[in-house]
């Protein structure tokens, strides 16, 4: 399996010397079947990343049409997230996840207090009234992260050059990482990778 992942790895070393301050990593992610791996969370970890200051102290997950928007989010540990209710009905957002247990009892509009996510890990959120409303949140100890769009593309900006671990995660396979690979960031780079999105193994 590892071998397979390695063969998928493409490092463009030629680009690295051009941008010494910060670089942008553009990823194209595909699943086992070669389809765009939408909603895959990617982030870069290094031994120092967990000490880095909050890059963006607040984030937001809307409830629009009885749906969490976005479905998948990724935030740096310590981020506070607002759950604005854009519907004209009430919601009751909750999570029983280890990383963060909380509930915002029946409310409309934006709750008074945003929720602080101070533990890394997976947080599955739902609405107690609407069983179909689910949102997936990954709390990471790194400011370098992105979520793949519909085409499977994810862009991590402002990454200082150095050696990192590129980690991919998908909510369909929440207990395991979808990909872990070392990357050396020099200059802007593009990378195509295959990730595991399916549960069961």
């Amino acid at each position: 399996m590892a071998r397979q992942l390695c063969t998928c790895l493409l490092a463009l070393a030629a680009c690295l010397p051009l941008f010494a301050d910060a670089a942008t990593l553009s990823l194209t992610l595909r699943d086992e079947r070669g389809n765009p791996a939408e909603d895959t969370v990617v982030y870069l970890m290094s031994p120092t990343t967990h000490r880095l200051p909050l890059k963006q102290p607040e984030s937001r997950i809307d409830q629009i049409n009885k749906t969490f928007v976005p479905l998948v989010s990724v935030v740096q540990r310590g981020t506070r997230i607002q759950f604005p209710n854009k519907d004209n009905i009430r919601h009751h957002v909750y999570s029983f996840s280890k990383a963060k247990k909380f509930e915002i009892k029946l409310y409309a509009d934006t709750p008074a207090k945003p929720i602080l996510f101070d533990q890394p890990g997976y947080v599955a959120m739902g609405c107690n009234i609407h069983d179909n409303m689910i949102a997936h949140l990954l709390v990471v100890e790194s400011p370098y992260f992105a979520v793949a769009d519909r085409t499977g593309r994810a862009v991590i900006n402002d990454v200082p050059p150095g050696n990192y671990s590129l980690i991919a995660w998908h909510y369909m396979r929440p207990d395991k990482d979808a990909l872990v690979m070392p990357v050396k960031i020099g200059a802007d780079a593009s990378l195509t990778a295959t990730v595991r999105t399916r549960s069961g193994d």
Partner: protein
Amino acid sequence: MRLPRFRTLQGRIFAFFFGLLLLTQVAGYALTSTLGWSIMQDILAQDLRGGQQVFKRLSEQNTQFLTQAARVLTADYGFREAIASKDTDTIASALENHGTRIQADLMMFVDNDGTPYLGSGKPSSLEDSERVARLLAAISPQGETTGFARLGSELYQVIVAPVRTPLPIGNVIAGFRINVETAREFSRITNTDISFLSRLRDGNWQIHASTLPAAVQNKIAGDLGGASGQVMTPRRVDTPDASYLTLDVPLAALNVQNARVILQSNIDQAMLPFYELRNSLTFLGLVGLLLSSLASFIMSRGIAAPLRTLSQYARSIASGDYRSPPWLNRADELADLAHAFGDMSGAIAERESRILELAYTDTLTGLSNRAHFIERLATALASTGREGAPLAVVLLDLDRFRYVNDSLGHPMGDQVLREVARRLVAALRQTDTVARLGGDEYAILLPTATPSAARKVVNALQLALEAPMDIEGQLVDIQGSFGIATSPEHSADPTTLMRCADIAMYKAKQDNLGFAEYDTRYDENTLDRLSLMSELREAVEHDQLVLYYQPKIDLKLGDHHAVEALVRWVHPRRGFVPPDRFIPFAEHTGYIREITQWVLREGVRQCSVWQRAGLDVSISINLSARDLMNAELPVYFAALLKTHDCRPDRICLEITESAVLDDPRHALENLKRLEATGCKLSLDDYGTGYSSLSYLKRMPVCELKIDRSFVQNMINDSNDTVIVRSTIDLAHNLGLRVVAEGVENEAILSQLCLLGCDQAQGYHFSKPVSAADFEAWVQSPAWRDQVQVARRA
């Protein structure tokens, strides 16, 4: 009523209707049974299908309960929170709480790791973790699954619903245990028996709950056997106790191979109302049968009873009871028949009285006949017997009436008889009865007449008959012999009294007395005659008869000898009985036929004996008038000749003229048949009867015997000589041999020789002798000398 009733019309009518009704009833019964069963089967099948639908709805309803309960539970925030926080006690209490709400038998939660949390239900069901795992493995991970699952050893209707927080974290399993209560509940609503079964991995079926008796359950389970396909057609299952129509309905099986609910209808129970109906129908049918049997019985009796009455009436007619016909109270054919019977009865009565009249009347004279007279006599005697009054019977027989008949002819004879009747009636009182008994015999009944009064009456009657009768210009003299018998002196019995009168009358005739009164002395002869008959029979059977032979001497002295066989009776007590004591009697009674046969047998035998001994003797045997009438005699005689190998021409059969004259046609015919056997025929006693030359000419005789009365008187009476001579001439002219009987002395013999007579017979030569004596006699020269002496004279 006779036992084999079908022999009677009534029985047949009854049997026909009874049979017809019975047939209808039986056919109806069979039809009802068949139809009933078929209809019942359809109804039961429909019931089962209905039951199936009801069961389906009930089952769905249960599912809905379970679903709702599960949904409420899985949606409960607190419950999910408890699960998320693995708060075991809270989970259990929530399960318990929700389980109680719908009274679920099972309410549990199993998380994704397979860890169970129990709310309610038997702890044992949890021990079967493998089954739970299989149950969970069998269900779809998305959404709820309902069906039947086996947990522990029990079957549950369950729902498996996932719990999301918001991702699936485990499943809630809620269920109702299927037990007898469930089955009863279902049974109560579906109105059928119901059984739940599941199939174990070893292929056997386990019965989880059933409303059926245990034996039937096992039978049903056994019957399912390896059935796995959907059997949706009702089928019949017979158990020793009852029959069921069953319908298998497959259940949604979750963690077992197969689950079934089987609906059963007890056929017998279902048929019960029908059986009751059928029993009622049968009862009604039987009652109907009984009633209609009764009706047909009455109807058939209505026909048969008058018929019986009529047949009884017919029988009474047969026995001479001509009462009026039975009154049948009806106006149909039977009544017509009764009228017809009545008419018939009247007609028969009329005819019978006419016949009686004829039967009691002598048509010639108009007097009563013998039958009537005997009846009158019996009636009179019966009344006098009681009163002890006297009574007399007089019998009258006309003397020499036969001569009148023969000389004047029968029409004249009849007129004489009528005239006598007229005179008798005229001379008697009204109360006296005159009857003609037959022929020239009359009988007169004199009621209340004493013997002396009877004598006076007889004298008067004699006087009445004395005057000559003028019959068509001819004066005829008539005399009669009267016999008188009186009661109570002679007898009180009509038959005996008549016999007494008869005996007296014969005595009068015999002794030419004019009239005679009965005397017991006269009776001895008669008694003699009576015993004679049986003795004579004994004589023939025990060979008491012997033949004696009287030679017939050839006056021309040829070598040929002839004898006349004469029967003799040597009675063991009386000794020698002369022929004239029993031959006339035998002729009279007809027993002469047996005697003649005996004589023929003995004569032919003796003749053949002599022939074999070289003695050539012809034997003459006498035949009586009765013998001539016997058509079997020629056959018998021919057989005799053959048996004894006797020359037929050595047997000569002697007949009298009068014997032939009684019935010439038959006599002549028989004579010809006798002649055909080859024997000779001889005419005996010629001249004593009313000799008719015309018969003489026609009779196939070769010999003529002149009666002894002429022969014996020849010497004294010249007329007799003339008769003998002319007879001899006549016979010779007709080519006949002449034999003279009664030759008693030499003078007669000489005369006969002179007249040219051929043979002579008489005491002058020999009396009848035994066969042995004859043999000795024929050897002696004495008779030849006698003939020669006579011829010389």
